[in-house]
């Protein structure tokens, strides 16, 4: 780490139509926002110099988010409020930043540090009631494991590890919303929409997951979970 560099952490959202972007597309879009903002970003000293930028855990295509993060290294100290304004002016509103602060160089990377994620999973359809979905989720979770197939690959999740908190269902709009907290790890991350889809099928509901929003990402520490910013 160059001694004259500053590590700036930015919290941003991914809402509206841009929820259909892939993680790679979001990363590229925000890298361009940083360039447009005029912030004095640092570049890597390699054969092909790149902006020094690091993102938190990936979000799947279709999943919205309220509190995601990236770190960008700058070559000069810019007051956080000023940086926030510059970034906001240079970013599409659907990916707007909502907090900026400096963090210590020694902090672990966002990718390694963030291990908990909270989601709201909105479901709709015939037979999709708070009771039916809660019961079905409780049954699936009670079984202790979930076998899912994703892109042709079989995965097995240990639900006692993947789901550190109780899953709660509440009525919203014309459907229900389940609040799911998952633990991410090297063995992969449980997709909450998959959990809910399995539950809907167990409940024999003619319903479907309509929208998934990651509402928070957290770092687990001895004193309890905390936000990266």
């Amino acid at each position, binding site marked *: 780490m160059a001694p004259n560099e500053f590590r700036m952490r930015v919290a941003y959202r991914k809402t509206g139509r841009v929820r259909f972007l892939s993680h790679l*597309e979001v990363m590229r879009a925000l890298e361009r926002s940083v360039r*447009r903002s005029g912030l004095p970003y640092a570049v890597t000293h390699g054969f092909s110099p790149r902006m020094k930028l690091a993102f938190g855990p990936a979000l799947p295509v279709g999943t919205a988010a309220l509190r995601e993060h990236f770190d960008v290294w700058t070559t000069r100290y810019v007051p956080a409020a000023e940086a926030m304004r510059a970034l906001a002016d240079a970013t599409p509103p659907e990916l707007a930043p909502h907090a900026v602060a400096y963090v210590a160089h020694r902090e672990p990377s966002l990718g390694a540090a963030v291990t908990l994620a909270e989601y709201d999973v909105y479901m709709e359809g015939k037979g999709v009631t708070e009771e039916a979905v809660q019961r079905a989720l409780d049954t699936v979770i009670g079984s202790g494991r979930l076998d899912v197939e994703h892109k042709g690959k079989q995965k097995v999740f240990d639900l006692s590890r993947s789901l550190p908190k109780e899953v709660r269902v509440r009525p919203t709009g014309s459907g229900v919303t389940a609040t799911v907290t998952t633990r991410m790890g090297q063995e992969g991350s449980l997709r909450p929409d998959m959990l809910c889809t399995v539950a809907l099928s167990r409940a024999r509901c003619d319903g479907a997951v309509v929208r998934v929003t990651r509402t928070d990402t957290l770092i687990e520490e001895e004193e309890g979970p905390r936000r990266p910013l």
Partner: protein
Amino acid sequence: MPAESPDVAWERLEGVLARVERPARYIDSEWGAIRGRDGAYRAALAYPDTYEIGQANQALAILYQRLNAEEGFAAERVYVPWVDMAAEMRKERIPLFSLESLAPIAGFDLLGITLPYELTYTNVLELLDLCEVPLRAAERTDDHPLVVGGGPCAYNPEPMAPFFDALLIGEGEEAVLDIVRTHREAREEGRERAEVLERLATIPGVYVPSLYDVVSDGAPMNARPPAPDTVVKRAVTDLGEYRPPVCGVVPYMDVVHDRVAIEVLRGCTRGCRFCQAGMVYRPVRERVADDIVREVMEGLACTGYDEVSLTSLSTTDHSQLEEVVRRLTSRLESTGVSVSLPSLRVDAFSVGMARLLAAGGKLPGLTLAPEAGTQRLRDVINKNVTEDDLIDAVSRAFAAGWRRVKLYFMIGLPTETDADIVGIGELVRGVLSAAREAAGPDRGSVRVAVSVSTFVPKAHTPFQWLGQAPLDEILRRQQVLRDAVPRKGVDLSWHDADVSLLEAAMARGGREVASAIEAAWRSGARFDAWTERFDLTLWREAFASAGLDASSIAEREFGEEDVLPWAHISCGVSPDYLWREYERAVSATPTPDCSFDRCTGCEVCRALGIDLVVGGERRGAQ
């Protein structure tokens, strides 16, 4: 068409997007997109392929900027949904919509469709059908948008003529405003569609197919007044009067040409006899260095891109390129931003410029186009480069650090013999050897990529009278090529000859070909330019159902006195000049470039009333 608010339209679309590949194609919301313009007159600008292929198209970016800068007009974008999305839209009864306002295209005043390549023709029909607009202009009413075409393929508009109300031949900077203003004015006066079309036909450069009757095969078209007998292309006098769209749309998804593109000059008078672009974009008009540097810096600042391309048909011909490159490398030092040249001449100067641009960073790809394997054939096609030029350029490049070069060649060129194809192999061997020698101890990592396409004789070129070599013969020559090109250190690839056959049939055909295109679309042909989607058998059947044979059209030869299917369209270059160039080709006589030598008599300047615009002294032939 029921008018929905964007929010309601989005709700309908949301569920569909969850089920299709690459939904980012359909979501708009990009930085630089222009929304919420309160234009009384709305134009939808379409590229007949997917978003990622069409988004960076510079012509549409210019029209988007021009229309959105004009009081009372608004332009939005539309692309062809991929097959999965099109199926979902038909199932859910969602008509094709514009990106910015999610509004059905059928409700727009004008639908502009660029024609970049013959193999996108079925996509034009797919686009119209998804818009719920009748395919044929004759079936449209006052309630439908005016469907206007343009772009490179408009220079032989006939195969697509029945599907368009009008086509613009040439450059759109000025003409686009003439078209929309005339359309709006005529409609405000309560004119019917037929009267609107007559009025449009009086705008220079605008071709209204319904006013031209096919009398018989081989006879001139019968133009009904006020339509002119010959439509002469539009061209702008001075590129410097039109600021390029520097702050364009910045896409989210990975698209082709995903970078800032600044057009540094238009036109090329090198005079390669196979090259349609070299004939139809004449004369040369350069932007001045100050403008280029300013536009590059502005474009980078407002888009956030880390790459800029100085585009044109032949950027290294720009008289002030060295100055531009020097100024840009100095201003962009330590920013991680790279500058690229899309096309390099086969000469040391070009390699030097590319090296300077790379300054300390990653070397860009090096692509050179000798086009033919022997000097005789290069003289036939007027590609004025020698084997020595090529070897010298490669030696300098590999000494400067490059380890890979891509070479473009064509087979099936007029007068070609097997000796010319064997000559490609020999030239490649020479390049490989020079590259290895220049690379020294690193010689093991040298790669030469050889890409070979099949020649398609295009309208408005000196080879327009000639037919394409038959498919069997092309396949035989490809075998000769495979046997001739060395294997070690070389990656050889060639274009699918089936695709080139269809390209020729559509590039050289007349209005009768429209029925074959429609039949192919009805049989499911879409995205024919995508290798995995192309099916020549389907196309042969479609031509047969229209009473035509694709090979006969592709291979058809014309005499000097014959009326060509595109004879009523003029790019300004005189047919006499093209014929003289054809005769010089047969005798392997080169013709110089008028931008650094004397006038060669193509007559484009006289026909268009414009002149060469060159900022400084151009570098002559090597």
